[in-house]
C-alpha cells in the first residue's frame, strides 16, 4: 500500500492550535502559533521543520502531555474508536484522556536511551502498557509480549523479556518502545523523531518496521522529523513548520517537486545529497604525508566496574598534505577515538601514529604540547566547546597568547582577521558564547582551529548538532577555507552526503576497524565492502520517488 485511502472524515483534526508558555511572571512564549492539519486513517503524515519550530509541542498537545506551564487554545478532535464520532481533546478530563492514551493514540519518543524506565524489565514495561487498558491474564500477556517483541525483530524474545533496558542497543531499545506502542493496537501513532538518534542502517530498519505495521494494521502515523530522507521514505503527506506556524502542507511528492514557501525551498536545497555535489578529486600528488597510522590500536583502560575496551583495532591509514580524508561509520565504531588520537588527545596503545612528522606513541607531555599548535580541532558540539565564562575575543586570542606568537597590540587585529575569515562580524568579539546561535558558534570553533594556520585539522562531526540549513553553510565555509589554507584534514562524520561534498578520500569504519578506504567517488559509487554497501543502501534520499524505489528494493533484499 503506497497511497492512502482517503476516508471522508479525518481521524485527527487539529484546528488553530496555539500553545503558549508562561516564562517568569509576565513573559509569554508562543511555541505553537495557530496551526491546523488533519490526519486520515491509515495515512502517514510527516511534520517537518527546523529545531524549535514547535513539532514536539504539537505532538504532545494531542495527548495532553504538555508541562503545566503551557496553555493550549484551539481545537484537537479525535474520532473515537468507541463512538466513531469526533470528540474534542482539549479540556478533556485527565481520566478520559488517560483512556485515550496508548489505547487510541500511542506515542513514540525520540530518545530510545531514556524512553524506557531503567529499573524495570522490558517485558514488565510492555505488559504494563498492555494491561493499562485491557484485562489480560498473566500468561496471555506474556505470550503477547513475546509475540510483539518477535514482530519488532528482537532476537530470542522469550529470553529477552526479562532483560533490563540497559542490556539492549539503541536500535533495539527503539524497537521495544515501538513494541510498547503497537501492543495496544492504537488507531494513531505519533512518532516524534523516532530515528534521529540512530544510525542510518538502524534507521532504515525502524522505518521499515513502521511501514509494515501501517500496511498490516492500517494504523495512521504522524511522523515528526527534520530528515527529508525519512519523509521521502515513509510519508504520504507532509506539514512544514517554521517558527510555530505551518508554512506549507501537501502530498509529499508535490511539496518535494514544487515547494511553495521560501523556507521549504531553502530546506530542501540545503539537504546534502550523495552524488549531487561533485565529490572532490583526490589530491594530485600525495608526496608529502601529513598523517600516517600503522596498526593503530586504541584501548580504554579498565575502570570502575568496567573491563578494558579496545575501541580501535589495528587500523592503518594515511592523509597526504592538503588532503581531506572523510571518516564515516556507525556510532561507536571508533571514529572519535581515532580522531582524538591523531590530535594527541588520546594515547595509542600500540602501532605507530605519525602526525606532521611527529611520532605520537609514547610522546612526552612537553613535546606533545609544542607540536599541537600545528594541529587544529573542530568539535562536534558547539555548546560545550566554548568556555562559557570567556568572551569570544579572549577565546580567539588564546591561541596567540599561549604560543606567544603575537604581540599584545596586534591581538585585536589577529582576532578580527579570524572573524573575517569565517564571515562573522568583528563585533562578536565582545560576546559570550551563549549569546551566539549554534551555527555562529561553530564558525568561531573553526576560527579557533585555524588561528595558528595549522597544517592539519581534525573535525569531529562538526555539523551533526546543527540544522540542515545551517549545516550546509558551515560545510561551504569549510570547503572554502580548505581551498584557501590548504590544510590536511581528517573529517569525521556519519553522513555520507557530507563526505561526498568535502572529502578527497574516504575511510569507512566498523567496530574499530577500517573496512574500506579509497577515493571518495570510488567508495560511494562502487562500494566493495558489504557494510559500505549496506550503509549506502540505507541512506534515505530526499526524493520520494527514488526513495520509495530504494526502500522497496532494500526490503526485497532483506526479506
Amino acid at each position, binding site marked *: 500500500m503506497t497511497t492512502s485511502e482517503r476516508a471522508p472524515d479525518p481521524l485527527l483534526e487539529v484546528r488553530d492550535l496555539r500553545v503558549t508558555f508562561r516564562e517568569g511572571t509576565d513573559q509569554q512564549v508562543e*511555541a505553537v502559533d495557530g496551526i491546523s492539519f488533519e490526519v486520515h486513517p491509515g495515512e502517514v503524515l510527516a511534520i517537518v521543520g527546523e529545531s524549535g519550530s514547535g513539532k514536539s509541542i504539537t505532538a504532545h498537545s494531542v495527548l495532553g502531555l504538555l508541562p503545566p506551564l503551557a496553555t493550549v487554545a484551539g481545537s484537537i478532535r479525535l474520532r473515537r474508536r468507541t463512538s466513531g464520532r469526533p470528540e474534542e481533546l482539549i479540556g478533556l478530563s485527565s481520566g478520559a484522556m488517560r483512556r485515550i492514551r496508548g489505547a487510541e493514540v500511542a506515542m513514540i519518543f525520540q530518545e530510545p536511551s531514556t524512553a524506557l524506565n531503567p529499573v524495570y524489565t522490558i517485558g514488565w514495561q510492555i505488559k504494563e502498557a498492555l494491561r493499562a487498558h485491557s484485562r489480560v491474564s498473566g500468561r496471555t500477556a506474556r505470550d503477547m509480549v513475546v509475540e510483539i517483541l518477535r514482530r519488532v525483530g528482537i532476537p530470542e524474545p522469550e529470553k529477552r523479556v526479562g532483560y533490563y533496558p540497559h542490556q539492549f542497543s539503541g536500535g533495539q531499545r527503539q524497537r521495544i518502545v515501538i513494541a510498547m506502542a503497537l501492543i495496544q493496537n492504537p488507531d494513531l501513532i505519533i512518532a516524534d523523531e523516532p530515528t534521529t538518534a540512530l544510525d542510518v542502517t538502524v534507521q532504515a530498519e525502524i522505518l521499515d518496521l513502521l511501514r509494515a505495521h501501517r500496511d498490516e494494521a492500517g494504523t495512521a502515523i504522524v511522523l515528526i522529523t527534520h530528515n527529508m530522507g525519512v519523509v521521502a521514505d515513509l510519508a504520504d503527506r507532509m506539514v512544514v513548520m517554521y517558527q510555530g506556524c505551518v508554512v506549507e502542507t501537501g502530498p509529499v511528492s508535490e511539496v518535494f517537486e514544487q515547494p511553495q514557501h521560501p523556507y521549504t525551498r531553502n530546506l530542501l536545497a540545503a539537504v546534502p545529497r550523495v552524488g549531487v555535489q561533485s565529490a572532490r578529486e583526490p589530491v594530485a600528488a600525495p608526496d608529502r604525508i601529513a598523517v600516517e597510522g600503522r596498526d593503530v590500536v586504541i584501548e580504554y583502560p579498565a575502570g570502575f566496574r568496567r573491563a578494558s575496551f579496545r575501541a580501535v583495532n589495528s587500523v592503518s591509514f594515511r592523509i597526504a598534505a592538503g588532503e581531506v580524508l572523510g571518516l564515516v561509520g556507525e556510532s561507536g565504531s571508533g571514529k572519535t577515538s581515532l580522531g582524538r588520537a591523531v590530535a594527541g588527545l588520546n594515547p595509542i596503545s600500540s602501532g605507530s601514529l605519525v602526525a606532521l612528522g611527529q611520532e605520537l606513541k609514547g610522546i612526552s607531555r612537553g613535546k606533545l604540547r609544542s607540536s599541537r599548535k600545528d594541529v587544529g580541532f573542530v568539535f562536534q558540539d558547539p555548546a560545550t566547546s566554548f568556555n562559557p565564562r570567556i568572551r569570544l575575543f579572549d577565546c580567539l586570542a588564546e591561541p596567540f597568547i599561549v604560543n606567544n606568537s603575537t604581540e599584545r597590540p596586534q591581538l585585536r587585529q589577529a582576532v578580527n582577521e579570524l572573524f573575517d575569515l569565517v564571515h562573522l562580524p568583528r563585533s562578536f568579539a565582545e560576546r559570550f558564547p551563549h549569546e551566539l546561535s549554534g551555527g555562529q558558534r561553530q564558525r568561531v570553533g573553526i576560527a579557533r582551529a585555524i588561528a595558528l594556520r595549522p597544517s592539519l585539522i581534525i573535525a569531529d562531526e562538526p555539523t551533526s548538532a546543527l540544522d540542515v540549513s545551517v549545516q550546509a553553510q558551515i560545510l561551504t565555509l569549510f570547503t572554502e577555507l580548505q581551498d584557501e589554507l590548504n590544510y590536511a584534514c581528517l573529517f569525521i562524520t556519519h553522513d555520507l552526503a557530507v563526505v561526498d561534498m568535502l572529502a578527497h578520500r574516504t575511510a569507512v569504519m566498523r567496530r574499530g576497524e577500517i573496512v574500506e578506504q579509497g577515493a571518495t567517488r570510488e567508495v560511494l559509487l562502487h562500494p566493495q565492502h558489504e557494510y559500505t554497501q549496506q550503509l549506502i543502501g540505507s541512506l534515505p534520499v530526499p526524493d520520494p520517488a527514488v526513495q520509495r524505489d530504494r526502500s522497496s528494493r532494500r526490503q526485497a533484499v532483506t526479506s
Partner: protein
Amino acid sequence: MSGVQGSGVGPAVDEHAEKIDAYASARNSQIAGALRAFARRRSALVGLAVLLLIIAFTVITPFLWKYSYSDITVDFSAAPGWRHPFGTDSIGHDLFAQTLRGIATSLKVATLVALLSTVVGTVVGAVAGYFGRAWDAVLMRVADLIMTIPVLAITLVLANVLGAKGSSWFLLSLVLSAVLWIPLSRLVRGTLLSLMKNDYIDAARMLGASDRRIIIRHLLPNAAGPIIVDATLMVGRAIIVAASMEYLGLGIQAPEVSLGLLIQRGQGAATTQPWLFGFPALFLVLIILSVNFVGDGLRDALDPRRTV
C-alpha cells in the same frame, strides 16, 4: 516568537548581527544575570539582609552599648528589661553584650573556616581532579577516612589534643578547617572531572595551553559556582559543629563567649529563665537559616544551566 509566518526569512546566519547594540549593553550579562537570578529569590534576599543586619549590628553596637561582654554589672540574674534588654546571667554579665560577642565569635570562626577550607579544599581538589593518579589516590583515601568517622568525633579528638590552645577561636577554626576542607575538595575534584569532559578543555589543550592555564583560566572559573555555594554552606556547617563542640564542653571556653557556649550555659534554665537560652539560640538559628538561604540563592544564581 511571532509574526514571522510567511515573511520568507530563512535562518540567516547574521540574524543577530543587527542586534549588536542590544548585546553590547549586556556585556556583563553573566554577572547581571546572576544578580538578577539571586534577587528573584526572595528567601535569598531576606537571608542576605538579615545576615548583613546581624553583622552590622554586631560590629556597631559594642561601640554604642554601655556594657562590654566582659563587664560585671550591678545586676545579676536579672530578667530582660530596659537596662538589660536580654537580661543578665547569674554573676552579672549583660546578656545583650554577650550575645553580640557570641555572634561575633561564631561568625569569625565560621568565616575563617569557610575561607581556609575553601582555599585548601579548592587547591587540593583541583590538583587531585586534574592530575589524578597518586594525588587522587591519596586524597580519596583521606576523604574516605573523614567520611567514615563522624566529623564531630574528629573535631572532639583534635580539640582535646590541642587542649587549652583549642579553646581560642583561631585554633578552633584550624581544627574545624582541618576536617571540613575534605568534602569541598571532593566536590571540586568531582566538578573538575566533569568539567574536563567539556570540549573546551580539549580545545585549550589543542592550543598548547599549560596545565596551570587550563586549571586557572578554564576549570576553576567554571567550578566557581559550586565552590562559592559550598563555601557559603560551610559557614552554616562550621557554626553548627562549633556550637555542638561547645555544647559538649570542648572548643571555645569562658571567658570568651560564643553562641554554643551561651546556649550550653542557658539550657538548664530553658523553662525558668528562658532568655538565657532563648536569645542565643534564636540568633544561632537565624544566622544558620539566613546563611543557607543565601547559599541556596547563590546556587540558583551561579547555576550554569540558568544561562543556557
